């Protein structure tokens, strides 16, 4: 079991992976990826109970679904760093014939991926379906999912949120990446989400805030609390307060790096701020 310092070292390396992947192909989504780096590292190294290897059905282990598929760089980096596929394959991100498509997909058979995502708002329904399958199979493991905050503007989420509570799907922990940013600006200016906690609570969910969503210890503590709330007849929502672009100072607190790659100088500066820890791919 890695300690906090080790998880932080992994996170630093994941940031380097994200920057280098996006820079190489001059496309991709670094902002949200960097903002969720600590969460992914904690989730895959500490929080989830995972089997060795990969099979689609995932019986006997926790499952994770990424709904906001555009933050594929952090997903791919962490999947590779925990051993689902060779780290060197990160070199193929967004290239022709790659398994690392712009948005995650099962179509190319990349281990670790169980659903395609990218068109927003679909992941919670899928995660709920997988959670229901776990109940049918008598599998006591949990289903985790991650969603962007702007993504909550998609109506399908609210169908799913209503369904989960109405059907007591209590083996799911859905995390909302509350970074307050989307492509066209802040979520407040584009389409205000209002009080997200109150909305989830009104729909019958248990809600847990992780105020320091870029702090490993806070994430571990908050997710442990979330896990303790499962199995009580209610779905669990985690509001993860993150900073978009976290860990690279000029990318932080802005929507400008939602879907923009750094140039050579910016890459160098970003890497300077995040010194190699595990070795670059």
């Amino acid at each position, binding site marked *: 079991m890695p300690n906090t310092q080790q998880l932080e070292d992994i996170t630093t390396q994941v940031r380097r992976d994200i920057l280098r992947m996006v820079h190489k192909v001059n496309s991709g989504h670094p902002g949200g990826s960097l903002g969720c780096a600590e969460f992914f590292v904690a989730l895959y190294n500490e929080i989830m109970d995972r089997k060795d290897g990969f099979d*689609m*059905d*995932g*019986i006997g282990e926790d*499952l994770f*679904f990424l709904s906001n598929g555009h933050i594929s760089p952090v997903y791919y980096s962490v999947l590779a760093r925990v051993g689902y596929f060779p780290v060197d394959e990160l070199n193929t991100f967004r290239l022709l014939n790659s398994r690392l498509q712009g948005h995650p*997909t*099962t*179509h190319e058979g990349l281990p670790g991926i*169980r*659903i*395609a*995502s*990218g*068109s927003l708002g*679909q*992941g*919670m*329904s*899928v*995660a*709920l*379906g*997988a*959670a*229901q*399958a*776990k109940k*049918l*199979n008598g*599998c006591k493991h949990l289903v985790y999912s991650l969603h962007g905050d702007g993504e909550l503007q998609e*109506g*399908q989420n609210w*169908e*799913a949120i*209503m*369904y989960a509570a*109405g*059907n007591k799907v209590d083996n799911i922990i859905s995390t909302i990446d509350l970074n307050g940013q989307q492509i066209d600006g802040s979520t407040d200016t584009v389409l205000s989400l209002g009080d997200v906690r109150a909305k989830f609570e009104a729909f019958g969910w248990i809600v847990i805030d992780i105020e320091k969503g870029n702090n490993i210890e806070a994430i571990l503590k908050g997710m442990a609390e979330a896990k303790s709330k499962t199995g009580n007849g209610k779905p669990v929502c985690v509001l993860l307060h993150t900073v978009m672009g976290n860990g690279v100072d000029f990318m932080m607190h802005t929507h400008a790096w939602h879907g923009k790659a750094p140039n050579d100088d910016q890459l160098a500066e970003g890497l300077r701020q995040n010194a190699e820890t595990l070795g670059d791919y």
Partner: protein
Amino acid sequence: MKTYENTGNKDTRSGFGAGLTELGKTNENVVALCADLIGSLKMDDFKKNHPERFYQVGIAEANMIGLAAGLTIGGKIPFTGTFANFSTGRVYDQIRQSVAYSGKNVKICASHAGLTLGEDGATHQILEDIGLMKMLPGMTVINPCDYNQTKAATLAIADHDGPVYLRFGRPSVANFTPADQKFEIGKALHLVEGADVTIVATGHLVWEALEASKALNEKGISAEVINIHTIKPLDAKAIIDSVSKTKCIVTAEEHNHLGGLGESVARVLSQHLPTPQEFVATNDTFGESGTPAQLMEKYGLNSDAIVKACEKVIKRK
């Protein structure tokens, strides 16, 4: 010529319901989801017999498709049930990304397809669903012709690994195929041998094609009738072999001529055996309220329309 007996009118949706009931007993991995239309989809028995494997999702079709995709992760075989309109157009992107592109083993079962749902009118009468579904890579598209065949198809798709769109309807129509038939996905059925014209029909139009072949026979025209229950993958060989003999073809479907069976047939023939073809289908239009028979008459989808199309296409040989 070979003739077929109507053993009594039945609705194809009840064939689906009967198939689902049987699957409930024989395949423990089959689960069913419905968006507030249990009675219309004839899913009552499955719900009653297997409440733990039945999911009432409410009026939330997008969520239903996503739930179904998720249920496959864990080895379940989900059958979703709602009207054809809400099974396809309303949830196209959910099917595209979460089911088709993700390669999930979901069976999208759609009742009240086409004009023959009748009085509810155009909001519910989808005539574009075959096109929408056949364009999705990896999607199998099936439109059985009667109660018995719909039941057989429902059983067959549970054994097929991959996404399927199963299309059926509301009204009671002739039930004439064998009760004990084995349904083979992608395999066209030769119903009547003929020499002068090939009629390729799907769904409710198969019985109309049989009626048309009798009328044509009385006029001295020998029509070959093929039941294409599977629009994708299309049995190209059956079509080419028949047309090699008859030299002309009429396609018949309860669907828009844009995107339907007829266009799939035309693509095959234009590549392999260019052939005069007439289309019995709706002409780029919405439907309207009326009885099923009135609508099929007004929009040219009955046996009379098929007879006329055959006479027309024979002259073009």
